C-alpha cells in the first residue's frame, strides 16, 4: 500500500470515528434520533482495513454494528444518516433504521441484527459467485458472540466443504453482550475454530488497519484462486457498551483505558507522521473535511422528508 492509500485508510477510520461520535451525541436528544445507537468506536481498523482490500463487485454481509463496514465499502454518509433519521431519502426509505441498512449500490446486501444470521447468507452469495464463475468475494462480518450460534457452524462447514469464496471476518471485541470472551466460550481464539471446518484461520491485530488490509487482501486472493474460505479474527475492543443505552457496568475502566492506548487511528497516524507521509497540517485538514462531511450528512438527514405513513405498506413483495 503506498502512502496515498495509507492516508485514505486513515481518513476512512477518522470518518467512521466521527460519524459514530455524532450518532452518540445525537442519540441523547430525542428530538434528533433518540433510541439506542450501536456504534463501532475503537474497532475502525477492522472495517477500514478490510474495506480497502475489497473491490466494488465484492459483497459484504454485516451485522448490527455495521456503520463502519458500510462506510468502508463506499456507502454514502448522507444516505446512511438519513436512514438512521428514518427519512425517505435514506438507503432503505426508513424501513431499516440504524440496524438493518442495506446498500445494494455498493454490494452491501444485508445487515442483519439476528446474531449469526448473516453467516449462512454470506455462504449463499459466495455460492452464487462459484456457480456463475464470477470473480468476486463475499466478506461476512460478525462478532465473537456470533461464533457460538448454530448458523456459524452450519455455514462454515458448508462453505469449506464446497470451497466457496467467502471471508468470515470476526471482529473479536472481547464482549458478547455483557459477557467477556472467557464467559461465553472456552476457546481463546475464534480463529482456532477454523481447523474444525478444514479452513485456514488467521489472527490479526484488529487495531492495525494495515495488518487487516493485508490479511483480507491475501484471503481475497486465496478465495479467488479457489482455495476456499478463510476465517480471519481481528482482535480488537469495544470502547463503548453494546449500545448507547448500556452503562458498561461490566467493563473495567482500566481495561477500557488500556485499549484506548491502542487506538487504531492514533497508531496509523503516528506511523505516517514518523515516516513523513503525513504532516500535522495534513491531519488537521483531514479532520476539518470529515467534520464537514458528517455535519453535511446530519443536515441532509434533518432536512429530508419523512416517509408518508402509507409507504409502510410498500416493498413487502415484488
Amino acid at each position: 500500500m503506498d502512502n496515498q492509500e495509507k492516508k485514505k485508510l486513515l481518513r476512512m477510520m477518522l470518518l467512521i470515528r466521527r460519524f459514530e461520535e455524532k450518532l452518540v451525541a445525537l442519540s441523547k436528544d430525542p428530538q434528533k434520533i433518540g433510541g439506542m445507537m450501536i456504534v463501532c468506536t475503537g474497532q475502525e481498523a477492522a472495517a477500514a482495513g478490510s474495506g480497502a482490500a475489497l473491490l466494488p463487485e465484492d459483497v459484504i454481509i454485516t451485522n448490527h454494528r455495521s456503520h463502519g463496514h458500510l462506510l468502508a465499502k463506499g456507502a454514502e454518509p448522507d444516505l446512511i444518516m438519513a436512514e438512521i433519521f428514518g427519512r425517505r431519502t435514506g438507503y432503505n426509505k426508513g424501513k431499516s433504521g440504524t440496524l438493518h441498512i442495506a446498500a445494494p449500490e455498493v454490494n452491501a446486501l444485508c445487515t442483519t441484527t439476528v446474531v449469526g444470521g448473516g453467516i449462512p447468507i454470506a455462504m449463499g452469495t459466495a455460492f452464487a459467485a462459484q456457480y456463475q464463475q464470477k470473480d468476486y468475494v463475499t466478506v461476512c462480518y460478525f462478532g465473537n458472540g456470533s461464533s457460538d450460534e448454530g448458523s456459524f457452524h452450519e455455514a462454515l462447514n458448508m462453505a469449506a466443504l464446497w470451497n466457496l469464496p467467502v471471508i468470515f471476518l470476526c471482529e473479536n471485541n472481547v464482549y458478547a453482550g455483557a459477557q467477556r470472551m472467557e464467559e461465553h466460550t472456552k476457546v481463546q481464539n475464534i480463529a482456532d475454530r477454523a481447523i474444525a471446518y478444514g479452513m485456514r484461520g488467521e489472527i490479526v491485530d484488529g487495531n492495525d488497519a494495515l495488518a487487516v488490509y493485508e490479511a483480507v487482501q491475501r484471503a481475497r486472493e486465496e478465495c479467488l484462486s479457489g482455495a476456499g474460505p478463510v476465517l480471519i479474527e481481528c482482535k480488537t475492543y469495544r470502547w463503548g457498551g453494546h449500545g448507547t443505552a448500556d452503562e458498561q457496568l461490566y467493563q473495567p475502566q482500566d481495561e477500557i483505558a488500556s485499549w484506548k492506548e491502542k487506538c487504531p487511528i492514533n497508531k496509523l497516524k503516528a506511523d505516517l507522521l514518523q515516516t513523513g507521509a503525513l504532516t500535522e497540517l495534513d491531519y488537521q485538514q483531514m479532520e476539518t473535511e470529515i467534520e464537514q462531511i458528517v455535519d453535511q450528512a446530519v443536515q441532509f438527514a434533518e432536512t429530508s422528508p419523512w416517509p408518508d405513513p402509507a409507504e409502510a405498506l410498500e416493498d413487502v413483495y415484488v
Partner: protein
Amino acid sequence: MQQITLGEAVNQALREEMRRDERVFIAGEGVGVSIHSGPGATSGLLEEFGPRRVKDTPVSEAGIAGLAVGASVMGLLPVVEVMFNPFFTIAADQIVNHAAKLRYLSGGKSKFPLVVRIKTGAGIGAGCQHSHNLEAWLAHSPGLKVVMPATPADAKGLLKSAIRDENPVIFIEDIILHWVPGPVPEEDYTIPIGVADIKKPGTDVTVVTWSKALGTAFKAAGQLEQEGISVEIVDLRSLVPLDEATILESVRKTGRLVILHEATRTGGFGGEIAALAAEKAFDALKAPVIRVTAPDIPVPCSKPLEDFYMPNEADLIEAIKRLF
C-alpha cells in the same frame, strides 16, 4: 393425458424449469442421492444436471435456507428442500427473519426469488417430529408466499409459478400425496399463485380446504350428495396471497361455511378463513362457521392414534349436518 403422482409432477416441473433456465438449481438433504427408496420428487435430476446444479447438502437446515437467501439475492433461482415440515423450525430464522424481510429492509431494492420446498403431513406413521403442518406459521410471516397444492396438475403448474416468482415462495407438499396419481398436462403451463380453485361446484355448503384434506372433502361430498346436500369444495391452493374473492363468492352462494384442514386447530389457518367470512360475508351466513381440524395434540405414531388425529370424512359429514 399422462397420469402421474404429485411427486412426479414436482419432478417434471423442476426438470422443465432447470432445462429452461440455467439460474435454477436445487439443494437439500438427499436431493441427488436419497436415503429414501423409490422415486422421489428430485429423482434423476442429478443424472441430468450434474452435481453443480443438484447440490446434496450436509444435514444443515439453516445452512440450506441461508444458501437460498444468499444465492437468490445474487440473481440465482434456488429451489431448496426441507425434508420434513418440523425441520423447518431449524431453518426458520433464515426463512422468517431473512428471506421474508430482507426485501422490505432494503426498501424494495433487493429481490429474493427463492423457493423452499417442504414435505409435510401425517399418515406416514413417523410421528410428530416428522409430521407437523406448520403452514399457519409461514402464512403469519409477511414477505412469504405460501402454496399447498392438492393435485399433481396443480403441483406442476404452481411450482413453475413459484420458481418464476420474484418473491420467496414456500411450497408445501404433502408426503402421502407424493404417491397419489392424477392427470397432468404434458405441456409447459403455469397456475397463478393466489388463485383458489373450485374443485367441485355445489349449492348448499362451502367447504374450504387445501392439500391432502381435499380428498377427505371429496369423500364426504360424495356421501352427502346421496343425502341431498350439495357441497361446493374450494381448494385454496395458495394460503398467501389468499383468494378472498373466490371464498366469499362461494360463501355468498351457499350461505354455509366449513373449513377443513389437517393442521391442528388453535391458531390454524382455518381461523383466518372463518374471520374472513365473519368480516365480509356475515350477512350471507345461514349458520355458524365450523372448523374441522386435527385436535390440539402432536401427531402420534401408533396407527389408531394417528388415524384419530386426522380429520376424516365422518368428522366433516357430522359437521356439515349440524348446519342444516
